[in-house]
């Protein structure tokens, strides 16, 4: 019996879940299958509740079934009101179920709850039908019925039904034999159901053959008036309700967990075995090793999959939350979900559920304005909360964006001062981002009024702790008046993590890859002193692109003795602790590896230097460093905190992704500032003077097995050297390496300053010299953006003789063609457009797929070729390609995709949607060649 009861709850959960989901879906896209599914689910629930003697659940679901009946027959169309009527019923059932799990018996409390819910539901229906309360709603409702009598009939039926059930309660309790029970719930009301012909042939008995198996329900469906979509298989119709139940198996999570652990062990054995195999010449062993490796990897992946769940399973619940919340707050709000198919480890999914809920509630409660405020601010009255989930770099990113009023830094600061979270003296030093992060401080809440929704002071700090507990992190971006985005980064899985292995002394340590920002290698001079590391008040710092990076020496802090002098270099591992970034100086970086982190005994964990340990391929143990703990223990952020988090915020793209461009700031001499778009930069190098040789007038340096020509940007731009410039004294020269058509070129600059993110366009109107793309404003300074490609082309032209004759011919041919370009990023759009124009083509650029499609529709025969980005707002590249292909009016032309998302899956997807070729972004020569090829202009 107990087991069956569990089954009942499992089924009820499943049904409730699906019911909520379908109810939401049906508002968006109405179809018959959905309404059938809704009806069927309630019906099933009624049946099984009856079987177990849960009469309250049976009654409620029976009433709901009656309300759904006209929907199923197509007499009415679903709308908000209908949903509002049904939801309390479902909630009541859920509530009762929750209690039953503990008590296994319905109580008087449930009885009261049931009758009030039923009265409420019936009452609401009657309100709609009779228009006693709100004539407007009644009017809209009456639209659903063809005649007035039908409408009356609907109401009567519902009333009768519910009364019928109530009067049948006693019988329920007397007769406990399953078959008897089965008959009862609807027995009394069968009369009223007769005329709906649902079961007129069968009579009252079989209506509730209550163990309601799916086939029986199907049977009913097929017999009822509503004809299923012709020819549709019944199994299909069942599936369409929601996810398929076929061929799935319920497995206790514990078993999966054990499996996961065992696979973890297997991975370790595999690693050790592989290591052992490398010492052997036995080909049979090596062969077996390879297979073991392969099978283990596959197994690991598959087992991981069993624990993966779509994030949609929790996101869709928010539909309901947002709906209820906005209603109770009198706000008008729409929830948009994106990426519901993104998968995440089950335990992690559970762990992010509550924090997410909190953030979403906050967005609706604090973030969004009331309808009046929105109208006054000139926004559309309906607020928008968007949840996006996607994979990025081995993590799942969840972004919750609202288009509300945004955070007010002033308000936060005042509040923080008032609550004692912040000291007056710190205010000046803080960037906006620091201020925003204050809302994650314990005991902080910005709500002016404490509402029952949020603002109880236990808030964002708990969210932050919970997210960090699972190895994730949280970030917040807000623009006043425009909205707030909360960004969560969650690791895919906890059990196996990618890590960097470093060595200090004889010990090896692993550092979780998620904490890693970058690696910097540092040479040592003859005395064993590391170059570039400076002392400041007894602590070490390093100048990383002009910003001071506080350093922790792993050997020093852990007290490891080492013969560090023997090596001629060491490395700085730049790490991101919660309070900022810092550099960890280690002797050597060994490898990156997937590791299984094993817990340490509590007293070792309490040291807060280590978060665990892992067993390496060779059987040795490497401790896993606790990055945050290290930073705190070393006290590195006590004073530098503000500065560092500011540094970090420079790197943090904010607001709207699309018009953010990253630039490398370089110093060329003179007071003007120069920048190179970061996407152009291949690598940054420092060459010592003696390495640089001359062939004729051209300076070259030996670089990765070939010669790297070095051009001085200063010379190219004819910039006079400052008199006090010390370039000749410098032992090394900073070179920005740029790749063009497979070759590397070096551009020499005086100094590499920093990387900055800039939103907004390049102003290209003022171009006083060659080799310049235009100007951008960075921190109120005017910065000149270098056109590196052109500089290189110009500089190389005198020794790379180009075949000018053929070029001219192609140019004139090219000018006959119009190219349609779809690209959302301002910089890329300009760059591609300029390059193609320069090559001779006429380019017509659009900011997204939608605009491009409109252009193509307007002039169906104008364009000879499309170059399109894949990821764009409004309409992506794939959709664009498909739309163009489908549109019969548009004369077909070759379509090329250019995207930075360049992997097999993306390529396949692109080609499937109709692109002739899928190319990597910014390979201009290749693009030009391909365009020529498709337009038959090849030289």
């Amino acid at each position: 019996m107990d087991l069956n009861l569990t089954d009942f709850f499992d089924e009820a959960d499943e049904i409730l879940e699906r019911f909520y989901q379908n109810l939401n879906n049906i508002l968006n896209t109405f179809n018959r299958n959905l309404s059938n599914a809704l009806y069927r689910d309630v019906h099933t629930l009624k049946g099984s509740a009856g079987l177990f003697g849960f009469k309250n659940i049976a009654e409620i679901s029976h009433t709901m079934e009656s309300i759904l009946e006209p929907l199923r027959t197509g007499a009415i169309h679903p709308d908000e009101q209908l949903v509002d009527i049904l939801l309390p019923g479902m909630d009541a059932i859920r509530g009762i179920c929750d209690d039953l799990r503990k008590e296994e018996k319905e109580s008087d409390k449930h009885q009261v709850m049931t009758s009030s819910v039923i009265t409420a539901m019936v009452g609401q229906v009657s309100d709609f039908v009779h228009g006693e309360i709100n004539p407007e709603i009644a009017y809209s409702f009456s639209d659903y019925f063809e005649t007035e009598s039908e409408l009356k009939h609907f109401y009567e039926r519902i009333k009768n039904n519910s009364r019928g059930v109530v009067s049948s309660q006693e019988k329920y309790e007397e007769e406990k034999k399953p078959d008897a029970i089965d008959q009862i719930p609807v027995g009394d009301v069968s009369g009223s159901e007769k005329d709906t012909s649902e079961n007129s042939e069968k009579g009252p008995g079989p209506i509730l053959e209550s163990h309601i198996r799916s086939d029986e329900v199907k049977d009913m469906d097929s017999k009822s008036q509503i004809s299923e979509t012709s020819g549709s298989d019944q199994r299909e119709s069942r599936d369409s309700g929601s996810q398929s139940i076929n061929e799935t198996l319920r497995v206790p999570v514990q078993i999966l967990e054990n499996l996961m652990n065992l696979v973890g062990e297997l991975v370790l054995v595999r690693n050790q075995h592989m290591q052992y195999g490398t010492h052997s010449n036995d080909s049979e062993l090596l062969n077996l090793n390879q297979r073991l490796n392969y099978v283990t990897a596959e197994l690991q992946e598959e087992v991981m999959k069993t624990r993966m769940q779509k994030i949609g399973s929790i996101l869709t619940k928010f539909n309901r939350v947002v709906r209820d919340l906005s209603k109770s707050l009198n706000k008008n709000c729409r929830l948009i979900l994106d990426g519901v198919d993104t998968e995440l480890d089950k335990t992690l999914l559970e762990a992010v559920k509550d924090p997410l809920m909190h953030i979403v509630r906050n967005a609706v409660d604090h973030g969004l304005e009331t309808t009046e405020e929105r109208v006054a601010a000139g926004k559309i009255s309906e607020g928008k909360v968007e949840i996006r989930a996607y994979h990025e770099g081995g993590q799942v990113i969840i972004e919750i964006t609202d288009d509300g009023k945004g955070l007010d830094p002033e308000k936060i600061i005042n509040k923080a001062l008032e609550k004692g979270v912040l000291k007056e003296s710190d205010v000046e030093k803080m960037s906006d981002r620091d201020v925003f992060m204050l809302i994650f401080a314990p005991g902080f809440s910005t709500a002016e009024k404490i509402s029952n929704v949020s603002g109880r002071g236990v808030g964002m700090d708990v969210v932050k702790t919970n997210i960090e507990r699972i190895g994730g992190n949280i970030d917040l971006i807000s623009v006043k008046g425009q909205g707030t985005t909360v960004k969560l980064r969650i690791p895919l899985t906890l059990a196996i993590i990618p890590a960097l292995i470093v060595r200090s002394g004889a010990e090896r340590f692993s550092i979780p890859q998620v904490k890693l920002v970058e690696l910097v290698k540092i040479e040592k001079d003859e005395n064993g002193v590391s170059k570039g590391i400076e002392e400041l008040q007894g602590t070490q710092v390093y100048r990383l692109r002009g910003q001071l990076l506080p350093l922790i020496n792993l050997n020093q802090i852990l007290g490891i003795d080492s013969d560090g002098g023997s090596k001629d270099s060491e490395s700085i591992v730049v790490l991101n602790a919660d309070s900022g970034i810092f550099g960890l100086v280690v002797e050597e970086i060994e490898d990156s590896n997937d590791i299984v982190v094993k817990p340490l005994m509590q007293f070792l964990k309490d040291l807060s230097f280590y978060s665990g340990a892992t067993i390496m391929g060779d059987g040795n143990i490497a401790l896993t460093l606790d990055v945050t703990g290290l930073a705190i223990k070393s006290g590195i952020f006590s004073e530098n905190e503000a500065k560092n988090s500011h540094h970090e915020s420079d790197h943090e793209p904010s607001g709207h992704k699309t018009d953010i461009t990253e630039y490398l700031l370089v110093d060329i001499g003179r007071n003007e500032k120069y920048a190179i778009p970061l996407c152009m930069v291949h690598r940054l190098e420092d060459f010592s003077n003696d390495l640089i040789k001359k062939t004729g007038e051209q300076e070259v340096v030996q670089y990765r097995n070939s010669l790297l020509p070095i051009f001085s940007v200063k010379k190219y731009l004819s910039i006079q050297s400052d008199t006090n410039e010390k370039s000749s004294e410098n032992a090394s020269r900073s070179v920005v390496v740029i790749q063009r058509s497979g070759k590397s070129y070096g551009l020499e600059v005086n100094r590499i300053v920093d990387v900055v993110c800039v939103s907004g366009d390049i102003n290209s109107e003022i171009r006083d010299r060659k080799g310049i793309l235009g100007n951008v404003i960075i921190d109120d300074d005017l910065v000149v953006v270098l056109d590196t490609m052109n500089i290189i082309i110009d500089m190389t032209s005198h020794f790379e003789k180009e075949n000018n004759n053929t070029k001219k011919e192609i140019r004139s041919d090219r000018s006959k063609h119009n190219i349609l370009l779809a690209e959302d990023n301002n910089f890329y759009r300009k760059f591609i457009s300029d390059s193609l124009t320069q090559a001779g083509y006429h380019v017509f650029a659009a900011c997204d797929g939608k605009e491009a499609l409109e252009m193509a529709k307007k002039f169906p025969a104008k364009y000879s070729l499309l170059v399109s980005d894949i990821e764009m707002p409004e309409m992506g590249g794939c959709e664009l390609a498909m739309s163009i292909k489908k549109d019969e009016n548009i004369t077909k032309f070759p379509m090329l995709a250019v995207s930075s998302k360049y992997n097999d899956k993306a390529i396949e997807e692109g080609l499937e949607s109709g692109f002739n070729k899928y190319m990597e972004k910014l390979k201009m020569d290749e693009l030009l060649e391909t365009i020529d090829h498709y337009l038959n202009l090849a030289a």
Partner: protein
Amino acid sequence: MSVHETNEKDVPMQLSTFMIAGHLYGIDVRMVQEVVKPMKMTRVPLAPEFVKGLINLRGQLATAIDLRYLFKLSESEQIDSMNVVCQTGSSAISLLVDEIGDVIEIDPDGMEPVPQTISRDIRKFMTGVYKVSDTLLSVIDLSGIMKFINSSK
């Protein structure tokens, strides 16, 4: 407090014995998971002094505890210690000893309390003393050790 107090008095108790710095010690055999030969140890920098390191026990981590330090015995010249691995709750610890002895059977009634003259700091790790033919055997109280370890930082 001690695991031995729960023993039925008339059932003989089996002790796994070992030598540390010439002294004989014993521990309830049921506490011992296995005895393994000297293993490679990974040092845990900054850990309390009694932690000698971590050992890899066929994929399982065990924390190696230096009994010499706990019992305030002189530093060993011997480098390779034997491991007496004990499972405690969810984790394993390895007690480092010089030499492994026999498993002997004793009558719990014959066990005497640890003399008061021994410092409390050491007494808390022992259940009692047992007289064997030519020497004394100190019976180790694992729960006492665990308590000490977990309260240390």
